[in-house]
């Protein structure tokens, strides 16, 4: 059975001040199986973030529904952990307090919170920075904290909205390895939005390519590169075959998106 079912979900943003409505997302369906790592790949403005926000419960579909373990999603909740593209750590909380935010909301005893937080701080390599405020951290460290903050809640699915988009290339590559390593260890179901083809192939076992706006899923490609994946896989010929194919798929859409002024 699929863990997450996106069933005919569409989104139309009403036009303001007499302007025509914007169709951000055509009716879209996608079944995410347990332990899947799916990348939603598409040009900017294609509605992939809108789709992710609907799954998170932060936005409502104009039609269709989202089912998580067979239960309809009606709003945001801790069973769908999310990491945003913008830095969303609470600036008044330290790294550790940020990671404990969801646990405290659940009413977990402080000692248990500290134990779990310590475990995830180690996993994302933030030992020694527990008591730093977000403003003292680099972008990569902030996103690692955000990842730990989502993971510590033990969500059924992890939603990531271009989480490494604002990072420099080297940091981004390291963050991809970190996330992939965590996924290879836990097999947490992941839905990852990106416009970076290499990022999608490197991490995902399925890549869903989206069209330019109004977005819909154009093709669904299985990436059968073996795990654990080492960063050197990016230079292999198998990787290049996927890259050539996805580049071709996405190119037409990017040209269309550009023509629309996205």
């Amino acid at each position, binding site marked *: 059975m699929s863990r997450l079912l996106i069933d005919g979900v569409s989104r139309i943003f009403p036009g303001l001040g007499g302007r025509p409505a914007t169709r951000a997302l055509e009716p879209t369906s996608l079944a995410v199986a347990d332990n899947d790592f799916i990348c939603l790949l598409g040009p900017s403005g294609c509605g992939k973030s809108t789709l992710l926000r609907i799954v*998170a*419960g*932060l936005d409502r579909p104009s039609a269709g529904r989202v089912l998580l373990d067979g239960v309809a999603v009606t*709003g*945001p*909740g*801790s069973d*769908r*952990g*999310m990491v*945003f593209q*913008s830095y*969303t750590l*609470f*600036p*008044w*909380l330290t790294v550790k307090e940020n990671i404990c*935010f*969801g646990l405290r*909301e*659940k009413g977990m005893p402080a000692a248990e919170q500290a134990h779990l937080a310590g475990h995830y701080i180690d996993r994302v390599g933030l030992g020694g920075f527990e008591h730093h*405020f*977000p*403003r003292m951290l680099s972008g990569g460290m902030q996103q690692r904290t*955000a990842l730990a*903050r*989502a993971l510590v*809640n033990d969500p059924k699915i992890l*939603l990531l909205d271009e989480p490494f988009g604002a990072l420099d290339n080297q940091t981004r590559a390291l963050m991809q390895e970190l996330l992939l390593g965590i996924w290879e260890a836990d097999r947490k179901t992941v839905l990852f939005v990106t416009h970076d083809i290499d990022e999608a192939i490197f991490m995902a076992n399925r890549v869903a390519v989206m069209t330019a706006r109004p977005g819909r899923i154009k093709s669904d490609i299985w990436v059968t590169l073996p795990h654990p994946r080492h960063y050197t896989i990016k230079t292999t010929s198998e990787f290049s075959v996927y890259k050539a194919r996805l580049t071709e798929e996405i190119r037409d859409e990017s040209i269309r998106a550009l023509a629309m002024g996205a």
Partner: protein
Amino acid sequence: MKPLVPVSPAAKVALGVAFFGVFFAAWAVATMGGFVSPTFLADPLAMLGAGWRLLVVHGFYRDIGVTIWRVFGGFLLAALIGVPLGILMGAYKPIEAFFEPFVSFARYLPASGFIPLLILWAGIGEAQKLLVIFIGSFFQLVLMVAVIVGSTRRDLVEAAYTLGARAGGIVRRVLLPSSAPDIAETLRLVLGWAWTYVIVAELIGASSGIGHMITDSQALLDTGQIIFGIVVIGLIGLVSDYLFKMANQWLFPWRLA
């Protein structure tokens, strides 16, 4: 000088003090040089002499104490009711829709215009002074707090929702801590306004306080005392402002750049 290049802390203090020096020198030249008649403007030394007499002979410190009490009393009253109401309005849009139009209207009502009415209602005692300050600061405070809370970063609110927070948790653990430094900064600003209102209230109907001393001195044509009274207000303002700033920096270390 290059735009936006910071100065060293020592130079900053020296420059700030230097302008006080320039200001007093210009004042001394204008008065002691005979350019302005002492009837209209006392010279700095006469002002200090008048101040000394006020404090030692006339017990002016009691007036200072009374005025400070009134300012903080009225200010605390406005803050105790205004801050929670502003937070509720910023967080919950129906509450904002209910109060906002009236508060926007009420904040244009001049506090000093209410003084005759307030004297009628509350006499010339302490209640009237506190009410003037309350009216002058409450409505402004409510609106500013509502705007601060309402402009909390939406992505932080969304992040909290995805971490399992509900409405109460959003208000207590996101809106409040994220707005607290700006609310404290607003309180600092409003305290400054409270000083303006207290003097106006004391000028019109009071038997004690700095403003009362200033009206009395006007009858005696003692410009030295008037200026001393004004300088005292300025000094108290400077000190309370500094204390407020220090408290804010201590309370909100995560804000420091």
